[in-house]
């Protein structure tokens, strides 16, 4: 009986603590249907909905990769992606989702334009916002609509120091991205 209780406790512990894994080199994110090259020395966290990587901690920089079905609800907006959306329309949905997060204040799109993502026509948005603490943040989102799936690669970091320092790494990650099954 004691052994069973111990086993259950260990299982709970293992499930409860999401493991951070050190990154470096090619990575096949089968859940997100994306393969990409991740930078050396960053840490990766996989969740049910997305995976993200960071070097110094999520508040200081994060790169998030997610694949969203058109039937899935978004976290902060009731709007949904639709099959056949133009890149401009899809870009507005993803930005509405970001701007409707109650932790995001004064969100402004600085630039939004067409861009290739995983070799396909998508978009790239540069945006800025403030956190609850008044910290000025900057971010870049790449998005791609493929049939019933929307792929998003998002980078966010404090505007001061971290954004400029880690943007190049993010752009390299995006450039390496490929869809596993198209």
């Amino acid at each position: 009986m004691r052994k069973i209780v111990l086993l259950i406790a260990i299982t709970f512990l293992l499930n409860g603590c999401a493991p951070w894994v050190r990154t470096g080199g090619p990575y096949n994110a089968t859940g997100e249907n994306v393969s990409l090259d991740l930078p050396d020395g960053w840490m990766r966290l996989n969740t049910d909905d997305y995976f993200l990587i960071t070097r110094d901690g999520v508040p200081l920089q994060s790169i998030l990769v997610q694949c969203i079905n058109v039937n899935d609800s978004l976290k902060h907006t009731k709007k949904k992606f639709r099959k056949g959306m133009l890149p401009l329309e899809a870009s507005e949905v993803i930005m509405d989702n970001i701007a409707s997060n109650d932790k995001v204040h004064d969100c402004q799109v600085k630039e939004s334009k067409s861009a290739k993502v995983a070799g396909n026509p998508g978009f790239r948005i540069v945006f800025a916002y403030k956190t609850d603490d008044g910290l000025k943040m900057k971010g870049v989102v790449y998005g791609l609509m493929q049939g019933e799936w929307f792929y998003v690669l998002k980078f966010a970091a404090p505007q001061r120091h971290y954004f400029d320092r880690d943007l190049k790494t993010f752009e390299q990650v995006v450039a390496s991205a490929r869809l596993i099954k198209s």
Partner: protein
Amino acid sequence: MIRIIFALVLLASLSGCATTSLPPVTSKDFVFEEDEKRLWNRSEEEEQLIARSGMLYQDRELDAYLNGIARKLQPPEAYQRIPFQIHVLKNPYCNAFAYPNGQIYVHTGFLARMDNEAQLATLLAHEMTHATHRHQVREFRGMLNKSAMFASTRSLIGDLPGVGDLTTVLGEIGTKASISGHSRDLETEADMAGIDLVVKAGYDPREAPKLFQHLKDEMEEDDQKEPFFFASHPRLKERSENYDDYLKELGNRAGGVTNAETFRKKVAGVLIDNALMDFRAGRFPRTQRSAEKYLAIRPKDGRGYYLLGEIARQKGENGDLAKAKKLFQKSVAVDPSYPDAYKGLGLLYFKEGKKSQAEKAFRSYLAKAPRAADRSYIEDYLAQCK
């Protein structure tokens, strides 16, 4: 054994209790307490954080209007003790809250829902009463007393085998649950003292219960169990009944001004800005209601029709696209200088394959908004129109 523990717990809790019964700031017996000062200092820190965060809605005229109503509600002696200031927060949900030092925050979402100044006065009077009746320090003391009792309980029973861990598990949830009952009384006091102020200021108290209807509407639309404003408040029905009882007592004497027209003009900007927040969050029924309210005040502003058109375009159901087109055209007709309606039209024509019409609309958009953040897409679509 249990009786001994119980007696010890009672003694320990009683010895550490501070009084939660304090007179209002307007009372002759008012003394600014030490813990109250600390609470005010802490409030100021939090207010500075709010100011830095970009959450504040910037509209000096609106701020002056709100503060003018607040001045009508409270007697000068209250202002001598508490420097009331009303602020607006960019948030589409119905909520408002007060700090003990008289800084009061009202969400744009609540202002957008209200119909007139009497309803606004009811809300402000309620929040101001929290400050004048020193609810935060009373609640804070109540919480400390309960925590003291809880700590005493823990220190006494924590050493008993097998019990200490249980109190740790109860922790926050148990303490919070015991506090919520206390808040209930204070909210009722704020309602009743607040409505007195509303009547004294000459506003129609029959508008007061309508605030609850707005909250109920929001709750139903969003499928919330309890709206924000009532997170720690007595339940909706109970509070609404408090007002009803008050009105019954007033009988035929109930009456006063609502200042609906002035209110509508002053909050017009909030209506459209809040509608945009609701629109981004995909709450289309609310966006539609606010945009229609806005158009009733400013029928020649293209933004209202544009938002209604965008709702239809993004819903994209039967007949919606034709409806969207008409609304965009209406927007262009009433305000030819407003760019976004041209973009909406361009996207509709583009998807219909009507390239020459799409091109014309897109070109108008770029001419009106040469620095548009999405210029690059439009240029791509223009290239595809050729």
